[in-house]
């Protein structure tokens, strides 16, 4: 039986048609996935369902009855629950307090904490969502915080649970646990909608999937009879190569970039990079594989001169650059794609043109003498916008208005167009959808084809394998193993990443 149905939902924003004639049904007790690229209109649709947006036209049918929500409050009252990508929890309050917030039991101004605690405890036991009701949110891991969010919805008697990109912030382990929880919930009669852009997850958890593209439903599939490739094609609207084709390319023998016995401290003054040495040759991609927090970001910052090295040397084309400032290193044609693009890569309120100019804003075509040359800056930006296929209203749009993938393309355009000799790429595709990943991978390989030395730091093994000529496994600040992609597999790399020791004589 259909518990929830949307009929011809249209949501028109001032310049964007976010949802165009959306018809979907949610059966009672199923797990439904809503798959689509960033900006396909998934979140808009869910916000319409949850009463945050009012649809321009169309109706929502709940339990066979037409409903109209004017706020999330209405939606909650009718049994809808939503777990947002960014949690809505008060850090300093306890789990119980957060869960009851807004619908506290008890009479008048007095809150009946004892009952509340009891209810929360019962609830978490019934659904297998173990969490200490008295713990403070700030002391919980992200995975546990998510459980609290789910409990919050269940406490309000949600029959339908909407999860917006629930795995974006979780570790692989936590993803497994979350999926177990979701299955338990389904088995006890809760209907679930998951918004995601990750194909693997859809295959792993869903019963049925709707694919959204540019605000329209592109297709509906039973999970049992659809392949990952078909889903990807529907989502992007063309054939997608899931692993980019890598032409063989002979690297030049003389290394362009060398790190010798580098030691770097992290913010807590603990050694994060511990006597690390590596080389990168022109025309090869060296992949640094490792679990997050094993010194990768400190290594990257030390290479860019954003963090001092306590000892060791960094050589570019044979010259020591360790004593140079960041600006001088950039002038020596090192390019850097930082891991956190919004914090380190872009000045969000600045325009696309300004973001492309930054760093090289002191030279032509971006300035003449001390005065900025906006015309030159915009002309250059326009060229890069078309050659890197950046979807933006124009060079004068603020970077903040672009989607994640296009923001990353702005950074790529800036860094790659500066003809680097050495390119440091840190987590280039984090949070991006298939189409953007494919594009960025092909651009990285293009740089390799132009005999640039590329150092790729990534937490995604798939990415490391797709791009690297050599894989260096980093563990606790050291390179513990060098492997060749052709002669190894993800299992072996994973073994060394988690501190596995070589069984040597």
């Amino acid at each position, binding site marked *: 039986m259909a518990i929830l149905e949307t009929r011809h939902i249209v949501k028109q924003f001032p310049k964007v048609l976010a949802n165009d004639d959306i018809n979907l049904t949610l059966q009672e007790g199923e797990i439904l996935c809503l798959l689509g690229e960033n900006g396909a209109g998934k979140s808009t649709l869910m916000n319409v369902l949850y009463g945050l947006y009012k649809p321009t036209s169309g109706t929502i049918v709940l339990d066979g009855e037409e409903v109209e929500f004017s706020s999330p409050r209405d939606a909650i009252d009718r049994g809808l629950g939503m777990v947002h990508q960014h949690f809505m929890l008060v850090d300093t309050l306890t789990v119980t307090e957060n869960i009851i917030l807004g619908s506290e039991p008890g009479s008048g101004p007095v809150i009946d904490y004892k009952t509340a605690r009891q209810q929360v405890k019962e609830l978490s036991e019934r659904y297998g969502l173990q969490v200490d009701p008295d713990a403070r949110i700030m002391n919980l891991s992200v995975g546990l915080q998510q459980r609290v969010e789910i409990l919050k919805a269940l406490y309000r008697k949600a029959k339908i649970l909407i999860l917006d990109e629930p795995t974006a912030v979780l570790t692989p382990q936590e993803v497994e646990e979350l999926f177990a929880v979701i299955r338990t919930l389904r088995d006890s009669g809760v209907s679930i909608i998951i918004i995601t852009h990750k194909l693997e997850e859809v295959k792993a958890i869903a019963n049925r999937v709707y694919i959204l593209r540019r605000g329209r439903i592109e297709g509906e599939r039973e999970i049992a009879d659809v392949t990952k490739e078909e889903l990807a094609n529907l989502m992007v609207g063309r054939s997608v190569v899931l692993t980019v084709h890598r032409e063989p390319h002979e690297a030049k023998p003389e290394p362009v970039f060398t790190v010798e016995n580098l030691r770097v401290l992290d913010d807590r003054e603990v050694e994060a990079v511990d006597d690390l040495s590596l080389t990168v040759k022109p025309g090869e991609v060296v992949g640094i594989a490792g679990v997050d927090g094993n010194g990768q970001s400190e290594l990257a910052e030390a290479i860019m001169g954003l963090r001092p090295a306590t000892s060791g040397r960094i050589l570019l084309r044979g010259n020591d650059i360790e004593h140079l400032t960041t600006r001088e290193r950039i002038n020596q044609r090192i390019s850097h794609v930082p891991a956190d693009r919004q914090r380190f890569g872009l*000045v969000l309120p600045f325009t696309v043109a300004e973001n492309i100019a930054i760093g090289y804003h002191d030279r032509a075509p971006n300035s003449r003498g001390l005065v900025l040359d906006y015309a030159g800056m915009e002309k250059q930006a326009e060229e890069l916008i078309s050659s890197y296929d950046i979807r933006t209203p124009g060079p004068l749009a603020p970077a903040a208005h672009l989607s994640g993938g296009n923001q990353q393309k702005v950074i790529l355009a800036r860094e790659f167009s500066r003809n680097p000799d050495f390119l440091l790429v840190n987590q280039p595709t984090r949070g991006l959808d298939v189409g953007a990943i494919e594009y960025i991978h092909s651009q990285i390989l293009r740089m390799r084809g132009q005999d640039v030395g590329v150092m790729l730091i990534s937490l995604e093994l798939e990415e490391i394998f797709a791009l690297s000529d050599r894989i260096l496994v980093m563990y606790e600040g050291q390179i513990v193993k060098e492997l060749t992609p052709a002669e190894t597999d993800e299992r072996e790399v994973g073994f060394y990443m988690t501190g596995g020791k070589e069984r040597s004589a």
Partner: protein
Amino acid sequence: MNRTYSTALNAVMVVLGAIGSILWLGATFRSGETYYFWGIWLIVAAAGVYLVRYTLENGRDELLALVRKSLRSVVVPVMGIVVAILIGGVLMAITGYDPIAAYQALFYGGLVRNWHISVLNAAPLIFTALSVAFAFKAGLFNIGAEGQYYLGAMGATWASLYLGLPGIISIPLVFIFAALLGAAWNVVPAFLKVKTGAHEVITTMMLAHVARYLSPVFIRANGGDPATSLHPYVTFEILENNMLPSFSQFMEHANYRVHTGILLAIIVALVINFLLYKTRIGFEIRAVGENKDAARAQGISVGKNIFRALLIAGALAALAGFNQVNGLDHKLFENLQAGYGWNGISVALLAGGNPVGVVFTGLLWGMLDAGGQFMSRTTQTPSAIVEIVKGIILFLVVARYIYTAISQWWKRRKQKQTTAVAAGQA
């Protein structure tokens, strides 16, 4: 469009705007005096020329976009002002004053009768507000503009007492000296900020008090003598060659006190606007202000730009002191009392940190002050009402979310109406 045309139009605009501003700002409103309106018409004409040039260069669509953008940026302040005036009126009605008569007096006094006082009030406010606004762009809060203002006043006085060169050489030297002193006053906060992370709000505010209480010492050393009743708390008068020209020197009827400091303030505002938005230094300062991590990752030195921003901010605030001493008072009083440093914060906030906007909000603030005095003198309405109105304006403008909430409520209402109409037709 043809480049020479563009340049020619630009020149016409500048000339019209400059002459208009001089006539308007220097005008004294009295019977038979027409400079005031001539000035306004010329400024309007200059704006018209600008729009024509813009249309010729970029086309009509861009013009509409520009108009829409500028309307959107003034709608919040204007709404704030209107609502604040209404609330002030209600307040007056409740406390037994006639709001209509009072507001008549306020605007007549501020815009017409005592226009010259409005202009005199505005000049130092524009300087201090520029100082605060400039620091804002680097993500810094120069709350101690008052201190740099005192330093500038002392520096200007000292130099002007002894520098006996011809005015055309001497005045620029005094100007630079005052600015340098203000900048130097911010070296310590800048250094502490960069090296230790000490917050500039604390350090500049503390130094503001130091500067404030340095001034009596300075005055004693330069003519102030509490033993006589003639010069108890004031320095000697500065040399005549160091006084800024007054409008009355080239405009008949102009009030003798109105001096060219206001023109200097406007020019400096334009220079600061250019510095911020057209130069590499401004680009770096804004980048650091918006996202210092990204700026640093692109090789922009955060420390260097914090230094630059705080030093330039100090110089700007000091120019307010120069303006008062060399333009208006011609000597340094122990109690400058006007609190231009503190009020500059309000003026800068009201302008949203925009250097050109500061000129207008500075004039508005000065007008409210001058009009408020006139109002309380002629209608016996307490001038505290004006302070309340100013407070509400600032509150409404700074608390932009109020506006957002109202516009959302309006949208919802409209949506409901249209759906109701649609339902009625069905």
